[in-house]
């Protein structure tokens, strides 16, 4: 039974009719005990018989050609097997959903830190020793490593609606500000790792990857073999945040080495290598212009940006993504420039676009409110457009106004005091808020559900990167088939299983979840037929099937396995309606007037993100996102050597992601009830990234409220804060 479904029209809310009562509940992760007991098998936990260890050798110039390597000096080291170079090695990880090989450079070097060879040895220590000792000879070339100074830039045609220039020049109140944000790292806990093993002309790759269906195609293309000869396994992934969307250099190198040596090879990146070679988030330079009438109607919106990437990468941080649909205006204009530099390539990192674009945009909205003498909450409420301001599509479901007002009531926004007037000892206190928005997507996904009696198995190559996929797919299946969730086994992260969207862009739960839902719906139809009732009249609960005055246990009805597979893809609703998660973030900060330290004292996120599949894992996602917001506002900054682009903040001591001490105990998340009928048949929207989008801006706006000073260069590190306070 294979079902192919295209999302062309709103679907009935079947999950509101089913009776098992497990959907949406804060069920514990079924994989939790394995994770906390150390028995969940992450990639590098495996060590197949005969395995050799590989360590990547990386370039120490920004651009040029490799003219030679003193292989003989390291081949003598005890345990060293080979120094492998190969034209199939890849320069950097594939971009998300690429499905084809990333740039393969042969003996060319395109950035400092680029993998150029793999040393393979009997032990990790010997491989690392040899990799560090290997002398490489280069013919170096001059290269621009800074987006400010590179002569090589590309500017897109602006995205526009109405006439920005005339609306802007006619505006009674204008805000025109420039902002900067630095490069950021995804900083997933598990370093990137791969183990490759060949059986004849088939390769099995275990790797920490987010998108198995695409990664399979990427590896096949990289190696020049047929995808049917590739199997990828990623049952557990220790965080990705975008950095594991695409096949990485460690995986390509492991596969090539294992093939040459005829034995399994494992390559695990060190933390420093992760920083150097895994796609970073681009730094940004942004300019926001807002025009309004004196009574607070926004008439002109422009958000221009400059980001960077290396030659050959199509990705550009979509900085103004949310600015294009949050508020309406008579004229809107958005222009992006990409600076080409010889530096670690850029790609998707947690909420690409919104994570940094909304820092600037929502801070500018706040500044406009100040200039108007208006409450920033009121300004936002007043300017919510009826339709997508650029393309005129209606919103599918948008409770932004409710999020703003509900959040304001819960946070105590009405008690907001005049900026710069509250202090506790040396600490200046302020509160701030921002809207949240993150567009929602449906990506082609397949899944299979098998039912024998009252036991079900779900199979898809979808991944769980710590997000809770194992939990929600069990819940959807249990709800649809009327089973306790414990009766559902979920198998993920194996490319031999039906191909899913993978985890990325917050679309995994919607897409893979919908495929599972559709497969289970097929099984319901089969069960109804066996019971002898309409599918509509069927009730499934605790292993019992009821309908049309008949009742039978699933164990009787389904004595032998039945199986259904379904595929979903987006359709007409994606064109007819615009779907996005929305929310409102609130933050209270304390700023030390002498040291410039900034402490976030409490945060609240109110979000409407469609149906919540699991209240606990959804909350964790939202909280995690808000913490990344703190990171973007206050702590995270990647820096590189201005001479050669070499990243110098290459560990978690120098690249500071918020630690427990940086995060307030009072972090609250509230979900507003919502169903997005136009999004997918389970009425969900993306969750993880919405928590990030706007969260940092609420912190930034709270700082302005506390100090009456506005920061334009983020993160607001203590030295920047003191300079502002003294300025």
């Amino acid at each position, binding site marked *: 039974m294979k079902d192919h479904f295209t999302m062309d029209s709103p679907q009935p809310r079947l999950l509101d009719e089913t009776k098992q009562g497990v959907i949406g509940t804060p069920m514990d992760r079924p994989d939790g005990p394995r994770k906390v007991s150390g028995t969940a098998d992450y990639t590098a936990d495996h060590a197949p018989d005969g395995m050799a260890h590989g360590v990547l050798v990386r370039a120490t110039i920004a651009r040029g050609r490799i003219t030679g390597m003193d292989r003989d000096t390291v081949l003598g080291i005890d345990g060293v097997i080979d120094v492998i170079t190969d034209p199939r090695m890849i320069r950097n990880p594939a971009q998300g959903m690429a499905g084809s090989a990333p740039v393969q450079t042969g003996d060319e070097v395109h950035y400092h830190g680029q993998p150029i060879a793999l040393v393979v040895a009997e032990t990790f220590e010997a491989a690392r020793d040899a990799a560090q000792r290997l002398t490489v000879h280069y013919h170096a070339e001059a290269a621009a490593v800074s987006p400010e100074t590179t002569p090589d830039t590309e500017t897109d045609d602006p995205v526009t609606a109405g006439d920005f220039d005339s609306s802007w020049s006619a505006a009674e109140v204008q805000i025109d500000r420039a902002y900067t944000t630095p490069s950021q790292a995804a900083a997933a806990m598990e370093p990137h790792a791969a183990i490759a093993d060949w059986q004849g002309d088939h390769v099995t790759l275990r790797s920490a990857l987010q998108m198995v269906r695409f990664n399979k195609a990427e590896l096949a293309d990289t190696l020049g073999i047929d995808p049917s000869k590739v199997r990828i396994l990623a049952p557990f992934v220790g965080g990705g945040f975008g950095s594991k969307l695409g096949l990485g250099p460690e995986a390509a190198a492991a596969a090539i080495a294992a093939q040459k040596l005829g034995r399994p090879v494992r390559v695990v990146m060190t933390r420093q290598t992760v920083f150097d070679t895994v796609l970073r988030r681009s730094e940004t330079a942004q300019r926001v212009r807002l025009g309004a009438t004196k009574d607070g109607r926004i008439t002109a919106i422009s958000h221009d940006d400059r980001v960077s990437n290396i030659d050959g990468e199509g990705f550009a941080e979509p900085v103004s993504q949310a600015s294009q649909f949050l508020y309406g205006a008579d004229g809107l204009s958005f222009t992006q420039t990409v600076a080409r530099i010889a530096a670690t390539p850029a790609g998707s990192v947690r909420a690409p676009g919104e994570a940094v674009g909304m820092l600037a945009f929502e801070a500018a909205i706040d500044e406009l409110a100040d200039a108007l003498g208006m409450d920033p909450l009121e300004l936002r409420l007043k300017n919510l457009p009826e339709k997508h301001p650029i393309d005129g599509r209606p919103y599918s479901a948008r409770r932004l106004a409710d999020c703003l007002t509900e959040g304001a009531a819960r946070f105590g926004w009405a008690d907001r005091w005049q900026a710069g007037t509250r202090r506790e000892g040396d600490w200046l206190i302020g509160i701030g808020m921002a809207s949240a928005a993150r567009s929602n997507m449906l990506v082609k996904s397949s899944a299979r559900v098998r039912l024998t009696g009252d036991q079900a198995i779900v199979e898809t190559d979808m991944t769980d990167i710590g997000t809770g996929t194992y939990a929600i797919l069990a819940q959807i299946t249990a709800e649809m088939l009327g089973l306790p969730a414990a009766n559902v086994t979920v198998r993920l992260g194996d490319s031999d299983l039906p191909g899913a969207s993978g985890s990325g862009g917050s679309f995994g739960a919607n897409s893979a979840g919908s495929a599972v839902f559709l497969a289970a719906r097929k099984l319901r139809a089969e069960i109804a037929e066996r019971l002898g009732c309409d599918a509509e009249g069927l009730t499934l609960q605790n292993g019992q099937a009821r309908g049309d005055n008949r009742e039978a246990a699933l164990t009787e009805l389904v004595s032998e396995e039945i199986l259904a597979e379904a595929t979903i893809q987006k359709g007409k609703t994606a064109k007819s309606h615009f779907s996005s998660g929305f929310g409102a973030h609130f933050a209270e900060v304390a700023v030390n007037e002498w040291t410039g330290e900034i402490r976030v004292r409490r945060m609240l996120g109110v979000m409407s993100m469609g149906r919540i599949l699991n209240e606990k894992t959804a909350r964790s996602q939202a909280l995690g996102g808000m913490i990344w917001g703190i990171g973007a506002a206050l702590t995270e*900054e990647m820096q590189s050597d201005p001479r050669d682009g070499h990243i110098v903040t290459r560990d978690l001591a*120098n690249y500071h992601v918020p*630690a427990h001490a940086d995060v307030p105990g009072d972090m609250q998340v509230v979900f507003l009830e919502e169903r997005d009928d136009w999004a997918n048949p389970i009425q969900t929207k993306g969750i993880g990234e919405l928590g990030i989008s706007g969260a940092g801006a609420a912190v930034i706006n709270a700082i302005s409220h506390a100090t009456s000073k506005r920061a334009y260069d983020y993160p607001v*590190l203590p*030295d920047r804060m003191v300079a502002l306070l003294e300025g």
Partner: protein
Amino acid sequence: MYAFDFEKPTTVAEAVAALADDEAQPLSGGQTLIPTLKQRLAMPSKLVSLTGIAEMQGVCTNDAGQLCIGGATPHAVVAAEAASKYPALSALASNIGDPAVRNRGTIGGSVANNDPAACYPSAVLASGATVVTNNREIAADDYFQGLFSTALEEGEIITEVRFPVPQAANYQKFVQPASRFALVGVFVAKFADGVRVAVTGASNDGVFRWTEAEKALSANFSPDALNGLSVSADGMIGDLHGTPEYRAHLIAVMTKRAVAAAS
């Protein structure tokens, strides 16, 4: 890490003899040296452990009333043993790194290393302590000679550090949030004959005395005495964690806090 030989003598004399070899280096708590070896920034032929030498362990008070700390005494022991005798020093020791660092890392290692962001050098300098080695005694004012450099000769071992105990003292540390080393640390010590102020973490030349503040505080030991005083940003460290201006600014802030806490 490159390969090396290892010796663990039980007396200072044996250690000095073992260190006579070319390229031999003392190893104390290893909290600095082991990471350095791992990064291949050092390649000693032999490591001579100092942690098995009984005469270099522990905290006691001598006839002159000075607190004498064995060179191989871990920070955690100093934190515990100095608590009643020299509370400011105990507090400093109890806030170095994390428990693992405090239970392994030693005062001799810290003072020998003279990291510009380390805590102990400020206490040694502000207290006017004496660094005792296997063959001489060195006054704090002569001991620290800039970034990672000291008066120690090749093969010379710090066996003890002797601290005169001030009437009042306090150490204020502004921690770099990720490493928890001092971004700026200020140790203020008030003696009968005057006040000494030592600053760590801030200067390109390592720990130094802020003499202007010392003068003002010797006349009037109160935070107000520092009003209007500031340190120039010239020569201050500028790095990922703070600008020179910010460090200079913090010196004044931390000094005031130390005086307020001490008085």
